[in-house]
């Protein structure tokens, strides 16, 4: 690796570990490992996640209202949707082969890795902005578009060769297209586009100035939850743990390369990489409880939330940023 890149990665890693956002995540993780009773009320955590989604949606919409929509945006959307459909395939192969999961659980886990984690994306945007490589506002729309295709692929994989169960299919499709985060992200995005920078000025003290602080507290909570789930988990094996680290590295690299290939700027290519690398722990688990109730949440939630999520926050976002800088 050329020296410039190495130095850059060092700086990025340092920045990661002095950022309050990341430090609060570490605090939560350590507090839970020490079995502290620190806990954020669930209503507050839920409220913060809604706030973050509304804010990021608005911000993206305002950005697009200014930059306009061009062919790059269309390409990024297509790339994201395609990745979400296809990434579960490789994940499934690894999970069944090396991971020794049965078809059902392998399909369920694969769906999580094709979909995205909003908070990982938001944290990455913060870090990339600090590093001077802000992703384009339209990446918010790409994120919303990537939430659900993977669910369909995961289900097809899990149910392959089985009698197609009818029960719950219509609820599922509905859940997939009108789930809370898709509606809120896209809704706020459209509001941002309609209102533009002028409309946003009024609400920006709330949605912009407060953003990083809320993200700190939310990541504190996610650290607590991720570590507690790790402690309570019964179903984790070293094989699954390894996959939960290997997949974000591979998917992140593929996503970043894809972004660079279709001509995205550095920040946006990195953001696409992060979206591919991240695993859902909100939209997809809810869908799985509906459609694949026999799959074990102790496997898919622990992998995505307790291993992949921390790995992305602490290590992989910086790696992907460095890779994107190199490729674009």
């Amino acid at each position, binding site marked *: 690796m050329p020296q410039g890149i190495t130095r850059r990665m060092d700086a990025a890693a340092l920045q990661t570990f002095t950022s309050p956002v990341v430090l609060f995540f570490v605090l939560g993780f350590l507090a839970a490992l020490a079995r502290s009773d620190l806990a954020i009320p669930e209503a507050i955590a*839920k409220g913060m996640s809604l706030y973050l989604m509304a804010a990021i949606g608005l911000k993206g919409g305002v950005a697009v209202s200014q930059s306009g929509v061009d062919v790059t945006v269309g390409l990024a959307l297509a790339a994201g949707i395609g990745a979400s459909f296809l990434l579960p395939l490789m994940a499934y192969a690894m999970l069944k082969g090396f991971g020794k999961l049965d078809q059902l659980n392998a399909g369920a886990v694969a769906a999580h890795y094709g979909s995205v984690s909003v908070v990982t994306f938001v944290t990455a945007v913060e870090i990339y902005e600090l590093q001077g490589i802000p992703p384009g506002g339209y990446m918010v729309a790409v994120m919303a578009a990537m939430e659900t295709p993977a669910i369909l692929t995961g289900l097809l994989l899990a149910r392959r060769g089985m009698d197609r169960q009818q029960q719950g299919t219509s609820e599922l499709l509905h859940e997939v297209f009108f789930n809370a985060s898709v509606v809120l992200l896209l809704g706020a995005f459209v509001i941002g586009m309609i209102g533009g920078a002028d409309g946003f000025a009024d609400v920006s003290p709330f949605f912009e100035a407060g953003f990083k602080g809320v993200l700190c507290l939310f990541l504190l909570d996610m650290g607590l*939850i991720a570590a507690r789930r790790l402690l*309570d988990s019964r179903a984790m094996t070293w094989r699954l743990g390894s996959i939960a680290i290997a997949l974000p590295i591979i998917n992140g690299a593929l996503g970043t390369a894809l972004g660079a290939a279709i001509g995205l700027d550095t920040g946006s290519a990195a953001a696409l990489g992060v979206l591919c690398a991240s695993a859902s722990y*909100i939209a997809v688990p*809810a869908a799985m409880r509906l459609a694949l109730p026999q799959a074990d949440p102790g496997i898919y*939630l622990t992998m995505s939330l307790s291993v992949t999520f921390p790995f992305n926050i602490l290590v992989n976002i910086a790696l992907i940023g460095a890779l994107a800088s190199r490729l674009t």
Partner: protein
Amino acid sequence: MIETVIRKRIEILADKVMIRTVTDAIDAVGITGWTITPVDSGKGREGRWREERVMGTDKVLILTIASQENADALAEKIAPILTSHGFLLTMWDVEVIRGERF
């Protein structure tokens, strides 16, 4: 003394995403109503869960008062998803005041 009638009290522990399925079943067998109460955490065969409200994978208790026949009909109707989704259904006899309407 106030007169009471005997009815079945049925409580179903179910995933929040499945509320609709359960209440539709209650409505379908002709029971007059239901009440949903929150659940914080729990432990079962799949290990401990808590703070799932943040992830949207939390559970609720669905409580309904019904006549013996309606209770049986509901149990029959709901049995398949009890097994597949790991729901918990308990029922017992209770006295209800002015309960003719149930």
